[in-house]
């Protein structure tokens, strides 16, 4: 099947992008309201990338950071991280990694590596190794113990990122499994999540 950009960016996918961004924002707000100790702000990006593929996922990630950046410009710096998360997650979904446990575990690990490394690059080269959040203390501790700045930031990101990635992914995954088949058939990447056996898209 030919899968050009035009194929990926159907009107349905286009309408889902703002929804994905809003889910990122609302997910974050809810985690604040519930005082959860994790950073939940990628649910929408992961979710949308799962059902609409890498390119739409990437745009969702980008748009989320653009909207955020309009208020807090540092978000522009991290746009690349969200874009990569959406992009990689979209490919994993296209390759059907998300339909079995092994794929999910490896996929999560891969997502974590991608986001940790890209975030570390931004943090080190644009912001001198700090993010303005509590995790900076961890980075400082690594640096103080004699590690190089780059290693320290990366280690911090992997540590804090693992929990975040797992939680973000897990919630997105739980919810995707609950999207009705009726809707999934209308999406170009919805097929792996359809529960009805032997389902085919006709027409």
């Amino acid at each position, binding site marked *: 099947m030919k899968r050009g950009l035009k194929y990926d960016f159907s009107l349905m996918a*286009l309408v*889902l992008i703002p929804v994905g961004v809003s*889910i990122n924002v*609302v997910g974050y707000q809810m985690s604040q309201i519930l005082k959860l100790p994790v950073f939940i702000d990628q649910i929408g990006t992961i*979710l949308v990338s799962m059902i609409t593929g890498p390119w739409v996922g990437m745009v969702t990630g980008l748009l989320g950071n653009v909207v955020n950046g309009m208020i*807090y410009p*540092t978000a522009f710096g991290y746009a690349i991280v969200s874009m990569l998360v959406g992009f990689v997650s979209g490919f994993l979904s296209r390759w059907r990694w998300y339909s079995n446990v092994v794929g999910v575990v490896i996929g999560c690990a891969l997502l974590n590596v991608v986001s940790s490394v890209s975030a570390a690059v931004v943090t080190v080269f644009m912001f001198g190794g*700090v993010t303005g959040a509590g995790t900076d203390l961890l980075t400082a501790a690594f*640096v103080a113990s004699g590690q190089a700045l780059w290693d320290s930031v990366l280690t911090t990101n992997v540590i804090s990122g693992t929990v975040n990635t797992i939680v973000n992914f897990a919630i997105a995954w739980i*919810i995707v499994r609950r999207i009705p088949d009726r809707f999934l058939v209308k999406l170009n990447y919805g097929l792996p999540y359809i529960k009805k056996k032997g389902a085919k898209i006709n027409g």
Partner: protein
Amino acid sequence: MDSRIGKLYPTTKFMITLLVVIISIFTPGYVLQYIMFPAFLIISLMAGTTKQFLNAFFKSIFIIILFIFAMQVFIITNEDQTPIWGFIHFSQAGLATSLSMTSKITAIASAIMTFFETTKVKDITYALEYAGTPRKVTFLISSTIQLIPQMSSLSKTITDAQKSRGIETEGGLMTRIKAFVPMLGPLVLSSIQQTEERVLALESRAFSAKGKKTSIYVLHKTGLDIVLEVLSVILLMGYVVWRVM
């Protein structure tokens, strides 16, 4: 946003912002860059957006700047460091790095914040469309900006509905974690369900119609816009010539 600055054409403001960003990146030292902060503070005073400007600055940029100094000057190992206490030491090289880095961050962030605080998203999308950006792109921007507050308030209704069927949102960590999916789930499912109808609603408004589109909302460039734009271009060219020579 109804100030003189707010009413400037978005492209004008964008060009000035871009000019500041380029100059800040390529000018050595830190004095010019730091001056940008009070300069943009004055601009936001004139535009009546000081509150947002300072709020965003202290919430995101200021902390980062402090941390960069702390990290680069006192913690990171440098060759010229003089010990103070334990792992804390002072480094002149670290100070130089911090000044260069934080000054650029300050200048660029100040310019970008001012741009978005003084420019309506609506004006930005208009200017983008006028400059030939496809409607699909501007659609994404405007509908996202419109949708976020709606989803946010819908999430409050959903929280209420779930409380009404006995889901606790307060208490121990486990209780709160358990509340997350019931709170977010309906939001996602209903909004995904609605995208279907939203697509139909958009099609009913000829969203996919081919051909040229028009706009009932218009912005006009004024003489001031032209002057400022020409000035920005001249300044940029002058700057490039000066830097290269």
